C-alpha cells in the first residue's frame, strides 16, 4: 500500500509585481553602494526573477547583476565571478547580499577608472512584491504529488523550491520537508535537496522532480519484498 500523508501537501503559488525603487547605477561603485542598503527583497528579485522570466536562458545568466556586469559594463571576469556565486548555499538573502558585495568589492579594489554604462543602460534596482496564495490542489501520496507537479504552474514550483527556502526564512524546500515528514521518504527528500535548482529551466526542474519520484512510484506498483 502506498504511504498516505496525515497532512497533505498543499500546492501554493507566488505571484509577483515589480516595484520600481528609483535607484539606478551607472558603474560598479554605484551598484555596490545601492546593494549594501536595499531591502533583501530587492536582492531576491535580482537573483531570482530570471528563473521565471527567462525560461530559455538557463543555465545562464542566473542573476541580473552578473548579466549587467558582463553584457553592459563588459567586465567579463567579474560577470563570471558573480554568475558563479552558488546561490543555493546561502541560507538567507542577507548572507547572499554580503557575498555579492564582497565579490564586487574585491574586484574593484585598486581598479580605476571604472567603466560606465552607456546612457539608457543603467542598472535599475527593482523590488519584488510577492503575493502568496493557496491553489486548490493537494497531494496525500507520492502519486498525487507527481500528478500535482505535472500540472503546477512554474510560479508554484518556484515558490516551493526557492521562495520558501530563502524568502520566508526556511532552510529547506517544501517538497523535501513534506516527503521526509509525511511519507518517510528521506532518500527522495535528500536527492531534491542536493539539486542545484539554479541551473535548470523551470520546465527542466519540473521534469527533474518527476524523475526523482519516478523510481519509487514504479516500485509502489510492485509488491514490497
Amino acid at each position, binding site marked *: 500500500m502506498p504511504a498516505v500523508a496525515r497532512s497533505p501537501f498543499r500546492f501554493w503559488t507566488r505571484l509577483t509585481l515589480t516595484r520600481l525603487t*528609483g535607484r539606478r547605477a551607472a558603474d560598479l561603485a554605484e551598484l555596490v553602494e545601492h546593494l549594501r542598503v536595499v*531591502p533583501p527583497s530587492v536582492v531576491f528579485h535580482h537573483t531570482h526573477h530570471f528563473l521565471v522570466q527567462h525560461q*530559455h*536562458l538557463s543555465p545562464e545568466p542566473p542573476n541580473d547583476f552578473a548579466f549587467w556586469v558582463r553584457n553592459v559594463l563588459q567586465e567579463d571576469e567579474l560577470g563570471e565571478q558573480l554568475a558563479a556565486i552558488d546561490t543555493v548555499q546561502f541560507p538567507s538573502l542577507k548572507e547572499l547580499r554580503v557575498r555579492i558585495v564582497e565579490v564586487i568589492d574585491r574586484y574593484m579594489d585598486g581598479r580605476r577608472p571604472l567603466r560606465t554604462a552607456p546612457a539608457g543602460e543603467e542598472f*535599475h534596482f527593482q523590488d519584488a512584491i510577492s*503575493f502568496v*496564495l*493557496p491553489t486548490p490542489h493537494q497531494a496525500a501520496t507520492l502519486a498525487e504529488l507527481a500528478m500535482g507537479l505535472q500540472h503546477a504552474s512554474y*510560479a508554484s514550483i518556484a515558490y516551493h523550491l526557492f521562495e520558501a527556502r530563502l524568502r520566508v526564512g526556511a532552510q529547506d524546500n517544501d517538497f523535501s520537508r513534506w516527503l521526509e515528514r509525511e511519507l518517510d521518504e528521506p532518500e527522495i527528500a535528500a536527492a531534491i535537496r542536493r539539486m542545484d535548482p539554479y541551473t535548470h529551466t523551470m520546465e527542466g526542474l519540473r521534469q527533474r522532480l518527476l524523475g526523482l519520484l519516478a523510481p519509487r512510484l514504479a516500485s509502489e506498483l510492485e509488491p514490497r519484498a
Partner: protein
Amino acid sequence: MTAGLDAYAPFVGAATIEELRLLGDRLRGRRVQNINSTAVGGGVAEILNRMIPLLREVGVDARWDVIRGGDEFFAVTKTIHNALHGQPVALTEHDVAVFREATEQNLRTMTLCDDIVFVHDPQPVGLIERRPPGSRWLWRCHIDLSAPQPAVWEFLRPWVERYDTAVFSAPQFSRQLPIDQVLIAPSIDPLADKNRELDPRTIENVVTGLGLDPTRPLVTQVSRFDRLKDPVGVIEAYRLARKYNDCQLLLVGGGATDDPEGRDVLAECRERAGNDPDIHVVELPPAANVEINAIQRASTVILQKSLREGFGLTVSEALWKGKPVIAGAVGGIPLQITHRYSGILTHTIEGTAYWLKQLLNAPEFAHQLGANGREHVRHNFLLTRHLRDYMLLFLYLDHLGESLISLDGRRA
C-alpha cells in the same frame, strides 16, 4: 464576441489561467473604473477593449469611461505627450487654461467610482481633484518619461503625487516620486488578428500582392513612418548587407496619411529606395492587421531600428511569430530582447548591417533566437500576464508598502 479566458490556455497553460481565476476570486465585486481619453485607436484603447471583458469574467466589476474634450484640448494634450517624450515644446498660459477647463468640465459630468479609479495617461490626470473619500487611485503612464521637458512634467507632477501608485512600462521611465511606482509592461493578444495563426495561403497572397518574391529572403521593418523609427537607417543597413546577401527589404507602416511629418518621412524613404526593385516601401491603413501579421510571418529577419521608443510592442509581435529580430537598444526593447539569446540589440547602422548578414548566413542561430524570443514573449508579454499584473496591482492597493502579501491569511 471576444474570446474568454480559457481560450488562452493553449498558449500559457491551464495552471496560469487557474491562477488568474484565484486572483479574481479575491477581487470579486471590487469596482474598478478605467478612465482614458479615447475609445478607439491607439494602444491604450486596444488593451482596454480586451482587458475589460477578461476582468469582468474573473469577477472584477470593471468599467471604462472616456473623458470628453474639444479639438483645442486634444491639441494641448498632444503637446504634453510630445513634451513628455522629450521634444522641445512648451505649454502656453492659454494651453494650461484649456487643460484645466477641460478637466473641470469632465469633473462636472463624470461620476467617479468610490473604490478603485485607474487613470490612463496624462489627459485625465487632473480628475484626482475630486477624489471620493476612501477611493484608491492609480495613474498608468504609457509614455517614455525618461527625459521629459521639465516644465511640462512639473505641471503634471502635483496631480501625479496625489495618486496612490504610478505604473510605468519600463524602469527607466519612472521618476522621483513620493508615491509607490510599479513596473507593468504592455502586452500583445495572441488571439488578435495581428497575432493569430494564419494559413500559408493567406500569407502567400499578402506577400505576392505586395510584389514580393516569396522564394527569396525578406527583411522587414513594420512601423510608422517616423524619424524616431529610423527607416532611412534601415535602408542604409540593408544596402550594406545586400552587398553580400541576396534579400529583399520591406518597410511597411501607417501614419503617413494625416501626419505631415509622416508624409515627409515616407517621401524620403521612397527617394532613398530609388529604383532598387528589391526595396519596397508600403503604406497600409491602421486596420490592416491580418496583412501585418502575414508580412511578419513571411519575413526572414525583422528589424526595429528605433532611435527612441515607448515600449516597441512590434518587437513582441515579431518574436511571438518566432522571428529573429534586430532592434535598437532603446525604451522597452531591452526588456523584450536579451542580446544574443532572444534577439539582437544594436546601436548603429553598421551594427545592424553586421548582424543582418550574420542572421541571413546562420539560419540555425537565427531560428534559435526566434524560438527563444517566442518563449520569452509567452511568459512575459501576453495579455494574460498583463491581466495578472493589473489584478495584483488592485490587490496591492490594500497592502501599500508591503513586500510579502498573504492572500489567504493563514500563511505568509
